[in-house]
């Protein structure tokens, strides 16, 4: 019975998120039809610009479901970009080696932070705060200069496009097919894999149980520590992968990159229906959270005269809205 109830609140939050996204996008298509909002590419651009964020947010969703948090992901992204740029441009490494190192960095962050959180019992906020400072600091130590990536193979990946059979015609009447870069394909695969993992695999169900109530999960005989550790490792790995996708978009390593990305990821997860207290959330919801964030900024750019700081204001209003809904749901659950 209890399990069923929890799934309903997850489903309800997911429904609100998806409805909100559709409403916002349809409104955009109607209002800004002359600003290209109705073009398929405009929609795909939401994924193109946010592929890295999408993957990182999925990782965050997983740790947030256990009731944890990871605020080191922005710094990990900056570090990954810098290390990749440094390896390829200054150390002469191949693009393959750079990618492996990038994923390794993410994995290492996950393992260390996961160990400290689960086996040492330290607050995840503090552990990942340290991770955040460490990552940013290390990035600056490698180089404070901007390093542009000019590696041929890497640029080939970055500029590769999958053209779609559909598209739009421009002002001069020329047909331009819509496209997605490989980053979007990778990000979508990650979202789907995470969704399957959480919904249909034992590991996923354990995560929800731990997030819902750690004590009872322990009493049920679940290996709480091991599961949580795995969640952090997976989160770290996805941060590394997300950093790589981010780097494919920017093609540069720079210490100021991805500042505040962790906050974008957390807010996307929350808007996507993830409860900060744990036990509720889905990668699909998080994906819509990311899309909503992207839509808000596209709407405000299309409008043209509003300051882009309005993106933050609208986001904060949405966050409040979702937190209120969540607390209403939580108190309703308690009453029963």
């Amino acid at each position, binding site marked *: 019975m209890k399990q069923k109830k929890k799934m309903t609140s997850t489903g309800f939050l997911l429904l609100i998120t998806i409805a909100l996204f559709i409403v916002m996008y*349809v409104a955009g298509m109607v209002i800004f039809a002359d600003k290209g909002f109705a*073009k398929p590419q405009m929609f795909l*651009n939401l994924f193109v610009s946010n592929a890295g964020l999408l993957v990182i947010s999925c990782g965050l969703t997983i740790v947030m479901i256990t009731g944890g948090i990871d605020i080191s992901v922005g710094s990990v992204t900056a570090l990954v970009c810098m290390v990749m740029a440094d390896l390829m441009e200054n150390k002469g490494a191949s693009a393959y080696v750079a990618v492996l190192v990038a994923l390794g960095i993410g994995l290492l962050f996950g393992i260390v932070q996961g160990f400290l959180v689960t086996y040492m019992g330290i607050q995840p906020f503090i552990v990942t705060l340290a991770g955040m400072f460490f990552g940013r600091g290390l990035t600056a130590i490698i180089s404070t200069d901007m390093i542009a990536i000019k590696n041929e193979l890497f640029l080939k990946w970055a500029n590769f496009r999958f053209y779609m059979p559909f598209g739009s015609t421009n002002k001069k009447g020329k047909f331009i097919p819509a496209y997605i870069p490989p980053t979007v394909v990778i990000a979508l695969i990650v979202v789907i894999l995470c969704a399957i993992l959480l919904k249909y695999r034992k590991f996923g169900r354990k995560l929800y149980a731990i997030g819902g109530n750690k004590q009872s999960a322990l009493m049920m005989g679940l290996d709480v520590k091991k599961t949580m550790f795995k969640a952090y490792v997976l989160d770290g790995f996805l941060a590394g992968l997300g950093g790589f996708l981010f780097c494919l978009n920017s093609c540069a390593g720079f210490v100021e990159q991805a500042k505040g990305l962790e906050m974008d990821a957390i807010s996307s997860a929350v808007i996507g229906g993830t409860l900060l207290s744990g036990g509720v959330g889905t990668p699909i919801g998080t994906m819509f959270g990311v899309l909503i964030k992207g839509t808000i900024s596209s709407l405000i750019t299309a409008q043209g005269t509003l300051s882009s700081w309005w993106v933050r204001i609208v986001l904060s209003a949405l966050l409040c809205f979702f937190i209120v809904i969540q607390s209403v749901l939580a108190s309703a659950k308690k009453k029963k």
Partner: protein
Amino acid sequence: MKKKIMAAVMTAAMVAGLAGSTASVYAAEDTITVGFSQVGAESDWRTANTESMKTTFSEENGYELIFDDAQQKQENQLTAIRNFIQQEVDYILLAPVTETGWDTVLQEAKDAGIPVIIVDRMVDVSDDSLYTTWIGTDSLLEGRKAAEWLNAYATAKEIAPEDLHIVDIQGTIGSTAQIGRSQGLEEGVEKYGWDLLEQQSGEFTQAKGQEVMESMLKKYDNINVVYCENDNEAFGAIDAIESAGKTVGSDIANGEILVISFDTTNAGLTETLAGRIACDVECNPLHGPRAEALIKELEAGNEVEKLNYVDEEIFAADDAVASVTAVNSLDEEAEYAVTPITQEIIDGRAY
């Protein structure tokens, strides 16, 4: 319950849609649409730059300007440019946050046939044809002007080069202005043998400039020249110096700390008039008219120069130095007059 909510939401969407479609105004056929992706609003200079663009590309002048503030994030600029491409703007103006990482998105603009005009900072791309032209300031020349002024000033006041103990509050590391201005100073140090104590970034902000200056004052007790790479940093540095019980001014021999700054914003020149900034080298933010001139050339189908430098002046608190000779980025040597600042000059300026 769920259905009710969905119905309510859909109704709201339709209402919004209707309101929007009746309210939207269709631009006239001959209007030129310009998308401008600006770095942010981190300094007075940047605000003046934005204002110049907004007043130039106004509706009265036959333009529609789509302005996007990137809040210092390159990823926001990449998104904005992709949006501009989908909106099919006629021209894209890009004031980049960083020099690198533009190949992909500029290629997309080129494929869409939209000319890109780079503003202020330069972009570092593998293929120069990815952007049409560049407008901006010559930061290396600015740095060299400041260094030459300091040398001329020290000579006029009979101060030995090794007695100039300089700290450099750098701009945001990696920005064109920081690279050029730091290099100008470093060349001066090399050439004249000044004592450069430390270089640290103040990120072009007042708060950070103050913080850096405070820590430097604690570290060194013999600082007599502060080289601030913009006015906002200079304001912070002046606050830090004064709260440490020292005075700013140009009388180095009597323990005053000399402040050199860049940008010549209104507030910066007011400080110069008060004698608290000894020399302020202009970094002209009024790029709007120059950008419009270039767009008109392009509209007429003419070729334009790849690099366009705007003219810039030097202002000083006193008349100890009349002019300096410096070499610009195109290796052209010229003599530049140093203007002693007056209230009339400040009042007569647009920013």
